[in-house]
């Protein structure tokens, strides 16, 4: 689910880069405020590599299969490191597999990265509601994962359809965006369940991997 080169008009491409620059700057600022920002670099890098590889897992949805995006889980585990991690992951996707593109890297990073940061804040609600049990964390994990992908799907189709060079009429556009987003609802729910299962797995096996406040 990446926007390839050549589809979006240049102003959107440039706005994507400007927005990505801004969010990256803000994320790095938040990271640099941490006690030892460099300590998080190997963790974020290896988890970026792990997420990159984990996205090769295909979930059977007969008659086909879908692969996971996991941007919600990335936000849940990495917090503000998630945005640079997604930017790097997308750069590798574009360079190694030609998924997405170099000119659309900024737009794709915003599309995946902003929902990841939103997912981080959803998971942080565990402190506000004092959630410490695995079931509660799994529920938050579900919403983080589903929201991460759900928002990305919505941004993806809105950008794609509203920026086709030969424009559709407004009604067709709205119908197409709603239809395509709804068609992805089962995948969004699937990603939510998968994230919930992963959060409970990590809580049982390596609880220190879940971010602290």
């Amino acid at each position: 689910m990446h926007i390839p080169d050549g589809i979006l008009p240049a102003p959107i491409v440039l706005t994507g880069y400007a927005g990505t620059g801004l969010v990256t700057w803000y994320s790095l600022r938040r990271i640099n405020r941490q006690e030892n920002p460099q300590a998080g670099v190997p963790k974020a890098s290896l988890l970026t590599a792990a997420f990159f590889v984990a996205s090769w897992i295909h979930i059977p949805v007969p008659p086909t299969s879908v692969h996971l995006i996991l941007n919600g889980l990335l936000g849940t585990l990495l917090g503000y490191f998630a945005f640079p991690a997604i930017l790097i992951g997308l750069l590798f996707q574009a360079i190694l597999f030609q998924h997405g593109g170099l000119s659309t890297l900024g737009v794709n990073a915003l599309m995946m990265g902003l929902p990841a940061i939103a997912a981080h804040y959803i998971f942080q609600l565990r402190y506000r509601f004092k959630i410490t049990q695995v079931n509660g964390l799994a529920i938050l994990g579900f919403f983080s994962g589903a929201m991460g992908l759900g928002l990305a799907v919505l941004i993806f189709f809105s950008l794609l359809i509203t920026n086709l060079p030969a424009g559709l009429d407004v009604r067709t556009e709205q119908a197409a965006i709603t239809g395509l987003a709804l068609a992805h609802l089962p995948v969004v729910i699937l990603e939510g369940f998968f994230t919930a299962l992963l959060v409970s797995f990590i809580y049982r096996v390596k609880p220190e991997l879940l971010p602290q406040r």
Partner: protein
Amino acid sequence: MKLGIDDYAQLESPIHQWLPKYKLIGLTALILAFSFVQKLALLPLMAVTTAMFYQTARLPFKFWRQRLQIPGTFLAVLLLLLPFMAGETVLAEIGPLNIYREGLLAVVQISVRFVCILTLGLVLFGTAPFFESIRAMRSLGLPPILADMTLLTYRYIFEIGDYFQSMRTAMKLRGFESHRLNWQTLKHLAALAGSLIVRSYEKSEQVYKAMLLRGYGQNMTVIYQPKPTRRDSVLLSLTLGLAAGILLAEVF
């Protein structure tokens, strides 16, 4: 596991010998200029320029063809739909469907832009070892945290990819088959992804300790910056001139 974007980085060509920093500036400017192009008259110029760069880089045709396959599928679907969905001027009718002129022209425009930008990306990253390209980005002001993350991610993607392959093989050997979607399948696949994440996290702790022992974080980074030759500068000026020319032709 090998993904091979820089498999041909050791070839000899003017593009291979171009200073990576200048190559990054020049080709990125050209890619951005290409993404501006809306005028159909400029498309042949884009195609010829791209072909010249690829030819000069002496990268094999097979490499280009292989790299185009996967993204080409997504684009093919979009391009098949567009002439039927977008536009007002009907060119032809196939049963209940109309083929629109605007949609068809959009197909040509998107395809040429897509192929040209993708090809220039291959020239950019296929003609230097990947570490050199990251070093060039670092010398152009990429923040140290991003540069370190990019290098470490690249260093470990292949290793973690190998973990993943062996874990998946082990699951298959134990009789796991993921043909049906049910709770059990989902749980097993989540455990596979979770194990991968936990193993990577544990590895990252070892890596961090090893990095600390080698002086990581002591602000001793020295970026080696080779001096540009006359040829590097001429190539950069030509490429930037071309990018500016395309932009001007698009605007006026």
